[in-house]
């Protein structure tokens, strides 16, 4: 496979190789304004899809460069750091970049039928423009090596996310209050984050992340640095939907337009989780600014609480997307638990779970969106008999659902297995127990949906099974691809596992805190 990739990259012009890092972010960023100018929905969609495929090429170039050289650094304006802004790609953010790019392409392919249905024709082009800004913003947060640049791109992605969520308001007025809720909490999170960056600048005089780490040597006891850590931790915690700062998430995911829900559920909190790892373990010196007691006493309890409480909340929801949203908060708990272990094994397992959760939750949101488009299904009891009437979509849903539980033969099993073994290695038997209990709860809330689909009869109209709108191949293909990926990454997890292991080893060395 790498030989094919090398052959493909050999065909590319030299400028794509030299400037892949900035173009990965700048091309979707500039495609947004152009999409707005195109004014026609389908045209803007085709344009956005073309650009997202271009970002796929840039991401693959970066992949091969990181595999060859270990990391890629790019100085904007040719200003050497710390004077200028740099992009820095290593194994840690490469995994996130690949994830966001793939999910962006799949969301765009999937999204056309639902956008044509849900968004007013005059707004469709602007909707795709907002989507591309969100896409570029998330990539920009993940790729940059500059602390303030993180904030700028966090704002681009956040503002466009608020807009995307609010666009669900045409069909579901609750989208407007959900978006407003998210806007207030997201802005508080961003403010905390930027206060933390300000403190870091006060203590170190630099904004380049690698340089901050150098300047922080021996400043572990500086109160300004400690306050910076606390502010950045809380700010990113809000963006990651870390329990109990997750209250914006269920509404935003449940009421947003279908396409926005798919993309956000599989990328937004993942990028924030990555940023948290980057700052906590990469920028702040573990063991000097903070010690593992903070992880054990603050992060781990919140992670476990999310895994248990939000799984129980998912059990009591009637709305399908609310179930999936609460489950997302619980699954973020798994990832944060991996980080809180503070060991290379734990961080690697958390990253692997981030990857797997993105592809399975993206698939589940896609399937629920297709059900809604063809039968208007929104609640659990509406799922009756869909296993018969929509066999392919239901099969995709089932595979991703089993992966969510962590059933063997699916990718979800692999990352949960590594999480449990990392917890046991650390001696955290209670964390392993929490993972198992939370997985049992997942069996119930996923099982409830599967039972409706396969064991209940479809509702009948005049003795016949009602016919829904035909499923568009554009919407079905990405779902089936993700379902297949959920099985593929069970048998060959070498790509995400390799990147996650390398990243964790680079951050924490062999041992850990």
């Amino acid at each position, binding site marked *: 496979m790498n030989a094919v990739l090398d052959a493909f990259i050999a065909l590319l012009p030299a*400028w794509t190789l030299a400037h892949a890092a900035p173009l990965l972010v700048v091309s979707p960023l*500039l495609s947004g*304004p152009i999409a707005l100018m195109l004014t026609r929905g389908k045209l803007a969609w085709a344009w956005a899809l073309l650009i997202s495929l271009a970002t796929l090429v840039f991401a693959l170039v970066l992949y091969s460069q990181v595999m060859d050289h270990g990391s890629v650094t790019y100085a904007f304006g040719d200003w050497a750091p710390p004077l200028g802004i740099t992009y820095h790609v290593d194994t840690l953010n490469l995994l996130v970049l690949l994830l966001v790019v793939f999910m962006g392409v799949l969301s765009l392919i999937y999204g056309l039928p639902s956008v044509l249905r849900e968004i007013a024709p005059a707004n469709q082009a602007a909707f795709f423009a907002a989507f591309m800004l969100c896409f570029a913003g998330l990539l920009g947060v993940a790729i940059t090596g500059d602390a*303030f640049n993180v904030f700028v791109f966090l704002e681009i992605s956040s503002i466009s996310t608020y807009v995307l969520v609010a666009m669900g308001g045409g069909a579901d007025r609750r989208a407007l209050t959900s978006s407003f809720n998210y806007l207030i909490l997201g802005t508080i999170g961003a403010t905390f984050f930027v206060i933390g960056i300000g403190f870091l600048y*006060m203590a*170190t005089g630099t904004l380049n992340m690698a340089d901050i780490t150098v300047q922080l040597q021996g400043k572990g006891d500086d109160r300004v640095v400690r306050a910076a850590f606390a502010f950045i931790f809380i700010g990113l915690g809000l963006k990651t939907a870390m329990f109990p700062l997750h209250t914006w998430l269920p509404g935003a995911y449940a009421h947003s337009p279908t396409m926005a829900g798919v993309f956000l559920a599989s990328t937004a909190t993942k990028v924030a989780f990555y940023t948290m790892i980057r700052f906590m373990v990469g920028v702040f010196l573990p063991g000097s600014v903070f010690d593992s007691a903070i992880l054990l006493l603050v992060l781990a309890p919140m992670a476990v609480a999310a895994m248990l409480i939000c799984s129980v909340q998912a059990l009591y929801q009637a709305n399908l997307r609310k179930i999936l949203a609460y489950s997302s908060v619980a699954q973020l708990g798994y990832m944060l638990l991996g980080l809180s272990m503070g060991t290379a094994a734990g961080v690697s397992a958390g990253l692997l779970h981030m990857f797997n959760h993105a592809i399975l939750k993206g698939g589940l949101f896609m399937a629920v969106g297709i059900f809604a488009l063809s039968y208007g299904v929104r609640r659990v009891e509406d799922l009756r008999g869909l296993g018969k009437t929509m066999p392919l979509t239901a099969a995709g849903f089932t595979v991703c659902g089993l992966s969510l539980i962590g059933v063997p033969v699916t990718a979800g099993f692999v990352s949960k297995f590594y999480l449990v073994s990392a917890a046991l290695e650390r001696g955290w038997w209670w964390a392993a127990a929490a993972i198992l209990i939370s997985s049992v709860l997942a069996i119930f809330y996923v099982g409830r949906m599967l039972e409706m689909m396969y064991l209940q009869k479809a509702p009948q109209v005049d003795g016949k099974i009602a016919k829904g709108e035909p499923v568009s191949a554009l919407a079905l293909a990405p779902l089936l691809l993700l379902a297949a990926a959920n099985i593929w990454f069970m048998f060959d997890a070498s790509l995400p596992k390799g990147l996650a292991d390398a990243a964790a080893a680079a951050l924490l060395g062999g041992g850990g805190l």
Partner: protein
Amino acid sequence: MSDGFITPLDIFTVIDLIFMAMLVVVGIAIVRLRDLFAVVMLSGVYSLVSAAWFVSLDAVDVAFTEAAVGAGISTVLMLGAMLLTARKAEPVLPARHWVALMIAVVTGAALLYATVDMPAFGDPLSAPNAYVGLEYLKQAGPDTEIANVVSAVLASYRGFDTFGETTVIFAAGLGIILILGMGGMVQEPKTNKAKEAPKSVLENTTHSAHHMVLRVVSKLLIPVIVVYGFYVHFHGDYGPGGGFQAGLIIASAIILYALIFGVNAAKEAVPPGLLRFGAALGVLIYGGTGIVGIMLGGNYLNYNVLNAGHPTHGQHLGVMLVEIGVLVTVTSVMLIIFYGFTARQPDISDKDW
């Protein structure tokens, strides 16, 4: 940071302390008031005091921006938003008071906790003054020949951040277009005037014949304001100013026109479709300048390559181009927001106030 520097208690420090005390007083007043009109006005006052304080801190560029944004355009926009809602804020539930108070106290305690190890105010050897900041002061002259170091930093050294900020402003405009609409992509049909087509509040209250003085004075003022905007724009290389502040000033001239002569007249002069185009165009000008840098053999946003013989001339050209991008996007988005607000009908009528 314990290099023994002690902040001198001279007249300037006293002035700073007075400004800070004023900010605290205004802040508390804003929190306590329920009358939204007073809150909007006081937040304008807050911004103006901040701007004055920034001048005293020698941060004139920040002061200029704060005055233009906080005291200028955002006050107008907040008034526009207030017209669409109520005049008074609803009383807050006591339970929420306590949660909010607790969060504010904890946050404040964390900030106070940090002050102990902060560098002394004005310390020339503190990290921000001694490291990269000092480097900019030394390098900006030879590297760029731009007299205003702030402009060199924000448009060249950290030009990519400013590109991001321009996109943030574009995203805000996009949000207004999508959520509120452009308020007149379709103009009010002129044939329906007899049927008393619904008009915006701003039009009802201001578009009338009695304001002869206002109309004459504003007609004289508006061109001067626009020229001043361009002066601020092109003077950004040498003194405080630049595309962002200039965009706000030019937008406020058009808003003034709309307030005096009616939103429809303003829409005829500056149609919403043009603004939609302009908001996008500004981002493309900025980002496109970076692409040109790549095509001429440099990295993204390298301006030196724009003029191979004279790198510093290239810097001037690059900074001018990206500032034009900022100007176009900022002006357009401010007007998009204004049009978006004025196009909505308030839920309550004028009489209920």
